[in-house]
């Protein structure tokens, strides 16, 4: 039977490590690589010109690479559901391949396409290649819900087998076997559109700082690894002024568009580490950014409302303000805080900013100063940020606005001090806000405090040439910390004075499930007290706390309690550990017993590992102390090393099966 394959490029715009593409070629008589794009929607979509340019360059590069293999890229205009029936018939397609898209929107779209393919008798082949791990597997290992803390996520990941090894790029030889005649009119029908065709004006467009495409990505990968060797600091590069600028070794946009395979990066880092550290197994922190990406993908994959507050089960409901004017000032870099404005300008001009800079502007927009919803900020990033993945973008915004993932909210980045710490010279500001270039270092982060004479001498009078600060940061952060406290105390039913105790910790994720007895007898668990400083909200009352633990000193209970209130529990008492001044210390095991248990578990784990020949923990071990498992890591290290080779062989084998 004749096999006519179509490979559908979407998130993985590359020829290397592309398992779905390999499947398309496998035993096929013809292969066509398509990218589907709807120019009508391009201008309307919330995607800025830099991101479109990056995408078009990536497509250009793909087409060039395919040309070298005597093939071409078919850019088909339209919507997938309309395009495919046409292509199926026209090209007599029998096989459709694409990579697995774990994001809810993509899953829905792909479901429809797979169904359609079935109706046309087309075999659909889907392969996982955009993430390191099978996300469903991670969820399964976490009792069928995505891990909500990064530590928990790391614990699970450390038990998984290593990611599948990357596949080599496709070759001319492979392509020749399924050579497909390219029509005379190919460029007429299937050319890559220009920015103009997509409705963008390009007269004033400055040259791209980040050039899209696989070739560029691989080039950068090499430089990235060289730099790691040269800096000789693999895990924790310290941030300095240079970090703020676009670097020729930066990779994040390339991971986003799949120009670079995350597994290629993973294994390159791993091998480099083992080479430099004499075959020592690398710590998870080596893969920081890759794992964060994976973490947010996992959290989002089954949550279609991951990008909004309403209807999003993991998102704390915070009464954000709606203030379009303030939002516009932030988005356009007119806040009057040079540090914030420089970052937003860099983002708009170049499409990338350092992650600390992201923290700074995200905190400023949300919980730090403006008290505007993270959703608004996320949309601006979605438009401007080259590496904005749907999951990672929404997840990071929730994280930074303390809307999810159990974040402490006490610390707001200062829009003056944080910049100064990061770049004391102020050169970063001068580069992106040239009007401030003549300000001395002392005032460049707070020009409004400069004497008028100095402002005049520097040719930039605040309030005339550069905006006054749009908010009093001290006042704003004072208000906002109270608001956050309000929200979190309501959630945790915590009613003490400590700021740090009001964020509930999810004990399920860190410790073994406690029995009811242990819960009621373990002193410091916060009693299911009523909301917030319940005083005024008097309506909320715990009429009888005799069934719950008692405080050594009863917590202040100044309000008169209405005699007959209470409703169904809205929230099971989160087993948080308040450090309320009146609570006693937790009856935790003595150091000796911890150590003993730790060793015991480690030994058990070691045994089970030997039996299985790999370091992943089977479900049976799941009931044991999660947190302590994590601490065993060091002890397990040597074993891992012993088993490394065996494991890798196994990896290879399973990889090929996939």
């Amino acid at each position: 039977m004749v096999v006519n394959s179509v490979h559908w490029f979407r998130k993985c715009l590359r020829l290397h490590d592309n398992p779905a593409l390999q499947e398309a070629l496998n035993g096929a008589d013809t292969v066509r690589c398509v990218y589907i794009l709807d120019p009508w929607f391009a201008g309307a979509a919330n995607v800025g010109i830099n991101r479109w340019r990056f995408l078009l360059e990536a497509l250009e590069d793909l087409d060039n690479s395919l040309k070298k293999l005597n093939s071409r890229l078919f850019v088909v205009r339209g919507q997938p559901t309309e395009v495919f029936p046409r292509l199926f018939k026209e090209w007599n397609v029998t096989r459709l391949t694409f990579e697995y898209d774990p994001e809810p929107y993509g899953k829905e779209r792909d479901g429809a396409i797979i169904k359609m393919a079935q109706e046309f008798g087309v075999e659909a082949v889907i392969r996982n290649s955009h993430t390191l791990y099978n996300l469903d597997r991670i969820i399964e290992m976490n009792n069928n819900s995505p891990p909500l803390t990064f530590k928990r996520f790391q614990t699970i990941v450390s038990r998984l087998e290593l990611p599948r090894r990357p596949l080599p790029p496709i070759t001319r030889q492979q392509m020749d076997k399924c050579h497909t005649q390219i029509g005379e009119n190919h460029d007429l029908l299937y050319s890559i559109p220009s920015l103009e065709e997509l409705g963008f004006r390009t007269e004033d467009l400055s040259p791209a700082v980040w050039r899209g495409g696989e070739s560029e990505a691989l080039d950068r990968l090499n430089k990235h690894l060289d730099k790691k060797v040269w800096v000789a600091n693999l895990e924790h590069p310290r941030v300095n002024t240079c970090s703020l600028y676009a670097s020729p070794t930066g990779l994040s946009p390339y991971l986003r568009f799949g120009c670079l395979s995350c597994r290629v990066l993973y294994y390159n880092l791993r091998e480099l580490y083992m080479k430099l550290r004499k075959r020592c197994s690398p710590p998870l922190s080596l893969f920081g950014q890759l794992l964060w990406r994976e973490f947010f993908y996992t959290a989002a994959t089954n949550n279609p409302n991951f990008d909004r507050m309403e209807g999003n089960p993991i998102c704390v409901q915070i009464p954000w303000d709606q203030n379009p004017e303030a939002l516009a000032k932030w988005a356009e870099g007119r806040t009057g805080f040079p540090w914030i404005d420089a970052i937003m300008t860099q983002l708009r001009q170049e499409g990338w900013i350092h992650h600390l800079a992201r923290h700074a502007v995200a905190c400023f927009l949300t919980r730090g100063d403006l008290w505007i919803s993270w959703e608004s900020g996320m949309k601006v990033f979605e438009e401007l940020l080259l590496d904005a993945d749907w999951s990672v973008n929404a997840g990071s915004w929730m994280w930074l606005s303390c809307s999810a993932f159990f974040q402490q909210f006490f610390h707001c980045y200062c829009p003056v001090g944080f910049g100064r710490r990061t770049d004391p010279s102020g050169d970063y500001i001068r580069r992106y806000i040239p009007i401030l270039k003549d300000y001395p270092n002392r005032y460049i982060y707070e020009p409004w405090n400069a004497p008028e004479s100095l402002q005049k001498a520097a040719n930039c009078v605040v309030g005339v040439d550069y905006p006054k600060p749009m908010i009093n940061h001290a006042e704003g952060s004072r208000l906002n910390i109270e608001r956050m406290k309000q929200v979190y105390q309501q959630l945790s039913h915590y009613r003490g004075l400590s700021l740090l105790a009001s964020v509930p910790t999810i004990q399920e994720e860190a410790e073994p499930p406690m029995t009811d007895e242990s819960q009621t007898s373990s002193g410091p668990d916060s009693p299911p007290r009523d909301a917030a400083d319940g005083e005024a909200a008097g309506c909320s009352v715990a009429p009888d706390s005799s069934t719950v633990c008692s405080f050594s000193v009863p917590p202040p209970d100044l309000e008169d309690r209405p005699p007959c209130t209470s409703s169904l529990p809205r929230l099971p008492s989160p087993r948080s550990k308040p450090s309320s001044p009146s609570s006693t210390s937790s009856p935790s095991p003595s150091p000796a017993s911890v150590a003993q248990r730790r060793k015991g578990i480690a030994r058990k784990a070691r045994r089970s590992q030997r039996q299985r020949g790999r370091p992943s923990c089977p479900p049976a071990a799941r009931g044991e102390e999660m947190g302590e498992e994590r601490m065993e890591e060091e002890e397990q290290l040597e074993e891992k090393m012993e088993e490394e080779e065996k494991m890798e062989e196994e990896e290879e084998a399973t990889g090929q099966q996939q």
Partner: protein
Amino acid sequence: MHMKRMKEGEEGSDGSPSKSPPEACKKVRKMSKELEAVAATESPDGNWARLPQELLLHIFQYLPLLDRAYASQVCRGWNQAFHMPELWRCFEFELNQPASSYLKATHPDLIKQIIKRHSNHLQYVSFKVDSSMESAEAACDILSQLVNCSLKTLGLISTARPSFMEVPKSHFISALTVVFVNSKSLSSLKIDDTPVDDPSLKVLVANNSDTLKLLKMSSCPHVSPAGILCVADQCHGLRELALNYHLLSDELLLALSSEKHVHLEHLRIDVVSENPGQHFHTIKKSSWDAMVRHSPKFNLVMYFFLYEDEFGPFFNEEIPVTHLYFGRSVSKEVLGRVGLHCPRLVELVVCANGLRPLDEELIRIAKHCTQLSAIGLGECEVSCSAFVEFVKMCGRRLSQLSIMEEVLIPDHQYSLDEIHWEVSKHLGRVWFPDMMPTW
């Protein structure tokens, strides 16, 4: 998981009374058993209308307002139950403009009905308003109609911006005094960020001095030290007080520690700088000493939002502070003084510091602040070995240890990957530094 349930909780918040999980669950279970019993004795189409009133009331207490409203449409009896005074003792008015808030608002018709039929039942009332002045004004309008009720608690809560500050002062004051004059037995009053003033506090005192136990009025710029002193002088039952530093005086502390006065439990002070370089007064050590003598267990919570050069008057002498929050950058020197002069310190949060490590300061704090059980560090630096030493000195009483990862500077003794283990060992539980996504 929890979050999910939290969310569901949010959804049910139609101003219904709230939640105390385990007991509520038990009661519901008990109730449902009773219900089953009732149902069992009746014929299959048993007469639900004959459910005893007390039982119905009990059930209704567990229902969110909206469900209660639906239930009230079932029959006359249930409709009567819906209006039972017991169900209207507490109410949270949520006043939000759809254009400026993400949250639902209490329906205007419901508000009208409450004022008409239930205002005399209200005892525990709070208003949550969004950032628009309209919402705050609407809250004032409702307040001024609460003429025939006697409130025990009242809370005015701005969920975003302090919108009560934008309401014309006279309007706000007249609405608030309606409550003060009519209630006569207010025990808890939360009016942070509002334009309350001295004369209205006098009205409060004149009518509620015997019952007032809690007063929160941080950032109320129209109150003077004399105004708050009048409250402290007259309201001897006051146990919890929150205000800004400019209202704090030696006289106030002495008034609060007079013999007639009950023990104070909490005093929260916000130290806020209006403009850079502001000068702050000092409080005598003898006044603090008097407080501690009178109320040995009282908590002193201080939030600082100052510029670094404004800390001069603070921490030069012993101060009985228990919870310290530094919202802005604070110098090494000041933290050094904290280590010397805050023997009662329980919680310390430092949001930012300069570029020099806080090693000696932390160790000094560990040594002198023997009650310290919670610490949070933001934009600071500490060397890993000093941090380990600090944790070792404090040991297990550190129940909250929230340290940003960037704070810890690796040194010859510990790398970042090693420190979590070392600290966990001293704490007796698993600990990790706080992380931010790299993205």
